[in-house]
């Protein structure tokens, strides 16, 4: 009896083992017939050859799954390198990357994530290699100077400006700028994405305070907002009419729901900031050359365009894709998170 049971357990384990070897990645695998571009510099040619020899790339992505997939597929097609990615939230990414880096055997070759204090800390601890020292050919080339971050040596490859999401049935065209949501009409109808959920919201509220004063937060609190744990459920609540406004709104989620026919829209006030996406090269990457080539690709005109095709992401290479008065996160550090939470009545 017991032998039969253990036997069964063993066969399950064998099956699990088999599945383990079968599991493949998410990105496209490329054919190996891809040629090296003729106009590539000798240094780039050498990097491409080394990366192709490694044959594979694993990366962690904060940008949404459809974007990560589009970039992975395009890179795989272009260079014939198999790409796998894991899509993570900013905080899960830091915890995971940190823990793996500490074991000395990181699973990912690089991350492409929000510029948070983690990025600086990871560099200080030697878990990542600053881009200028990584030996990326022609770095930074013609990449716009103002998007280069000197500490810890990285570059903003994508900007996700925050705005206001609205239920079009409820608001019509009444909402155009931040101040409009303080209208008494919207009392009890504003869905506030909980700023305690992620440090990524701190620069945003700093921008609001810089533009409109702390007073704005006190008045917003008096509007009795509905608190939602994150942007995703908030936007669904908005579509259903549980509220009329989501603050701050994420455009990519709105566009997705709009396509399905939901009565939602996105308003981009001219003054804005938002998550800034930077690459971080793992110091002990299993495929270091593929990782470097990927950063080169993300910063190139062609790669950066693929990364930023979806509405809701601004490209540093295309100033027209950004709000008129965009402020960098690094300039928005004055008010600490605790103060913001208490002004909004969240402590």
């Amino acid at each position: 009896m017991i032998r039969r049971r253990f036997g069964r357990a063993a066969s399950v384990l064998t099956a699990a083992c088999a599945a383990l070897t079968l599991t493949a990645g998410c990105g496209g695998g490329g054919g190996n017939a891809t040629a090296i571009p003729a106009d590539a510099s000798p240094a780039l040619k050498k990097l491409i050859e080394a990366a192709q020899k490694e044959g594979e790339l694993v990366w962690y992505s904060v940008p949404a799954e459809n974007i990560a997939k589009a970039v992975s597929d395009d890179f795989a097609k272009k260079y014939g390198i198999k790409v796998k990615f894991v899509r993570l939230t900013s905080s899960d990414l830091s915890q995971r990357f940190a823990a793996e880096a500490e074991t000395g055997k990181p699973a990912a070759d690089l991350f492409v994530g929000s510029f948070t204090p983690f990025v600086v800390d990871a560099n200080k601890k030697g878990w990542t290699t600053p881009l200028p020292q990584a030996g990326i050919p022609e770095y930074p080339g013609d990449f716009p100077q103002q998007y280069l971050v000197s500490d810890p040596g990285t570059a903003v490859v994508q900007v996700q400006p925050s705005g206001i999401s609205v239920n079009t049935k409820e608001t019509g065209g009444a909402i155009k700028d931040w101040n409009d949501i303080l209208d008494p009409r919207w009392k009890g109808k504003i869905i506030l994405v909980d700023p305690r959920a992620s440090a990524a919201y701190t620069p945003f509220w700093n921008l609001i305070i810089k533009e409109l004063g702390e007073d704005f937060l006190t008045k917003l609190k008096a509007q009795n907002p509905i608190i939602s744990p994150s942007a995703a459920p908030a936007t669904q609540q908005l579509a259903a009419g549980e509220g009329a406004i989501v603050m701050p709104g994420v455009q990519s989620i709105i566009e997705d729901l709009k396509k399905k026919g939901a009565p939602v829209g996105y308003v981009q006030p001219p003054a804005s900031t938002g998550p800034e996406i930077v690459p971080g090269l793992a110091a002990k990457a299993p495929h270091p050359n593929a990782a470097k080539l990927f950063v080169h690709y993300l910063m190139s005109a062609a790669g950066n365009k693929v990364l930023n095709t979806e509405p809701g992401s601004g490209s540093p290479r295309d100033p027209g894709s950004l709000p008129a008065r965009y402020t960098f996160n690094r300039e928005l550090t004055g008010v600490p998170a605790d103060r913001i939470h208490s002004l909004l009545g969240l402590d």
Partner: protein
Amino acid sequence: MAVNVPRVRAWASGLTPFTLLATVLAVGLGLLAVYPLALVVTRPFITDGRVDLTPVRDTLAQPDLDTLLWHTAVVVGASGLAALVVGAGLAWLNERTDARLGLATDIVPLVPFLLPPIAGAVGWALLGSERSGYLNLALRPLLGAVGIDLDQGPINIHSWYGLIFVYTIYQVPFVFMIVSAGLRNTDAGMEEQSRICGAGPLTTLRRISLPAVRPSLGAAGLLMVWLGFGLFSVPTILATQTDIDILSVRVVQLLSFTYPPETGVAIGLNLIVMLVVTAVWYLQTRILRSDRNSGIGGKGARTRPLRLGRWRPLARLAVLGYLALTSILPLGALVLVSLSGYWSSSVDFGALNLDAFRRTLSDVTTQEALVNSLLLGVAGATIGMLAAAVVSMLVRRSGRGAGLLVDAAIKFPPTLSHLVIAVGFVLAFSGAPFYMGGTLWILLLAYVSLHMPQATTASDAAISQIGAELTEASRLSGAGPGRTFRRVTLPLMMPGLLAGWALLFVTIAGDISASAILAGTGNEVVGFRILEVFASGDYAMLGSLSIMLAGATALVVVPVTWYARRRTRTGTPPPPGGRP
């Protein structure tokens, strides 16, 4: 004197290969739980080689610590009690009365549990939100017809009662499974005798049935507390909106808001949970150890179920009502949101489409994730329950001391936030010398370890009901401890173990907490996919994915439940020399 004989014998036969193996296994499990944790936990408390108690001070300085603890205690306590009453009531109806409806009643309490908590919570938010909840949209016209006009409500799931209600739904299956197994194993003859002697149903319940299932109720109570404090998705989605402060939510905020995470304070808060769990655990060991528990005797007579008479249709209606309320409603809400593409306050039945299901089915990653999750569920639950059975037996035999220590080492670490433990598993097993990072093995280890309390609680209850007379008879007939375990103890524990297996399987197959850190490109699991889909705001795919997971797990749980039931119906294999 009579009590001492088996104990001496147990000591004398202590060092057989079987006991040695069992001890190694138990100690191994203890280490598996303690070692990864030690890597994370000791860090904030040791600075420059010295013990640093700043995290404890910071914990006590948490804003509104008293509100936080009070709110959490109310929700966990109220839902735990409600689950004990509902779960035990359903179990009693099913096992002891003629109200049962075949296999259906066995499965009713389990169905809502097949939805991972994140999907269940979303389902209830879709149903019970004040303005656009599907239930409210349906109820308001009805109320309007009788002259009550509302623009929102009448139900608000983002409330104390809503939160406690959804917590209860996720706790009931554990009480039901454990108490059912307990009732199945105890002799119903005593209840019949009580009835024949003229005692009313209430007296019989109080004097016979309740004492008989005390070990099961104790085990269920411990699990209620353990699971209640650990539940995270439900309060995140339902409590954030209402100013209800729940500990598990605060812990995750502490871990994810800043970098480096405030692990010290998070652990400090978890230590409070651990104190509560310790108190309940102590109470439970007292219950298990008391000699007044009735056990399975050597006789296998079956009695007729209690006739409910005119109450029978009512009881059946209550069971079916519970099914409708807890399973059909949230599943229906998820199906509706999947078919609509998004949560809408006006459902356009002409525009419903299968797009979300098509996207889910055609996604290769999701297919792999589903296969992996089911494999991990089967492997994890099987290993977990077998190990739990061995550990329970060992702990029971070894008495106080070492046995209890191992038991504690296995049961307590998982009371910490699973996010903390998952990081510990990465530190312990990802690099040298194990190199398990990104494999299914690290998930299997973590799942088994994280859910050991659940497994051992079920097996503790199962073993505590086996009367000493049977194992003694086996020993006196010359069988060693290994053979006794295999031929007597294990078969008799089987209904309880299978019940535990089913719940463990469902929990592991739908795990989200540890997977957020441990799953990746090489080891996709469904829980991780659900998290991804939730984060991208795609409720339609969240719905279709959860329904598929629920369907797949049901395909495993239903036959197992049926088999467990059939096994008890035909009677457990008789002990050597016993009567059939």
